[in-house]
């Protein structure tokens, strides 16, 4: 019998804090390892001048990248604050001139760094890893995986 409440809690915890879903399901060592790996990956990415993405009209891939970032839960907020100095998910329209210029400048400052592409890859990978962890926590919760 699948305890759907337990599965839901595990998935939400996994989203809120990488590895927390596994920790909740009794896989404590794995949970701690996942937390360490994903946190190191994410902050290495930010340190390498990587950035989190903003959904941008007319750029479908930016929605996927933003989704990968948001999969990190609250860690994503730190990324947004570090990149744009505010919590923002959508690229501002040109009509909001001041905001548009500010975001453009902040994005440009990161893009010009030699390690920007690497950093962004680290940040995106951390998000993608956490999506796999949420799915893994789900599988363990329903008994598909031990």
């Amino acid at each position: 019998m699948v305890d759907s409440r337990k599965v839901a809690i595990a998935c939400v915890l996994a989203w809120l804090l990488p590895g927390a879903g596994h920790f909740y399901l009794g896989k404590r060592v794995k949970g701690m390892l996942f937390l360490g790996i994903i946190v190191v990956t994410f902050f290495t990415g930010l340190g390498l001048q990587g950035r989190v993405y903003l959904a941008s009209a007319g750029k479908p891939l930016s929605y996927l990248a933003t989704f990968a970032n948001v999969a990190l839960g609250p860690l994503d907020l730190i990324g947004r604050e570090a990149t744009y100095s505010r919590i923002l998910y959508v690229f501002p329209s040109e009509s909001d001139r001041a905001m548009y210029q500010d975001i453009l400048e902040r994005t440009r400052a990161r893009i010009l760094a030699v390690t920007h592409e690497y950093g962004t890859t680290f940040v995106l990978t951390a998000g993608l890893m956490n999506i796999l962890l949420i799915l893994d926590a789900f599988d363990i919760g329903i008994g598909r995986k031990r």
Partner: protein
Amino acid sequence: MQSHFLIMAFFSLLVGAFFATLTRDTLREGLKAGALLTVTMVGVSLLIAYVMYFLPLGG
């Protein structure tokens, strides 16, 4: 850290450790799988870089 190779090797190490932890249950199996994944990613990256060396830069 601005060395392309070191960044790539560190990335491979993290991804290797992640998938080893995800797919293996014992420490011994995990270390083996993680090492194999890391070495394979670094090796394939170097191989691709070597092949791309012969491609014209363009422009």
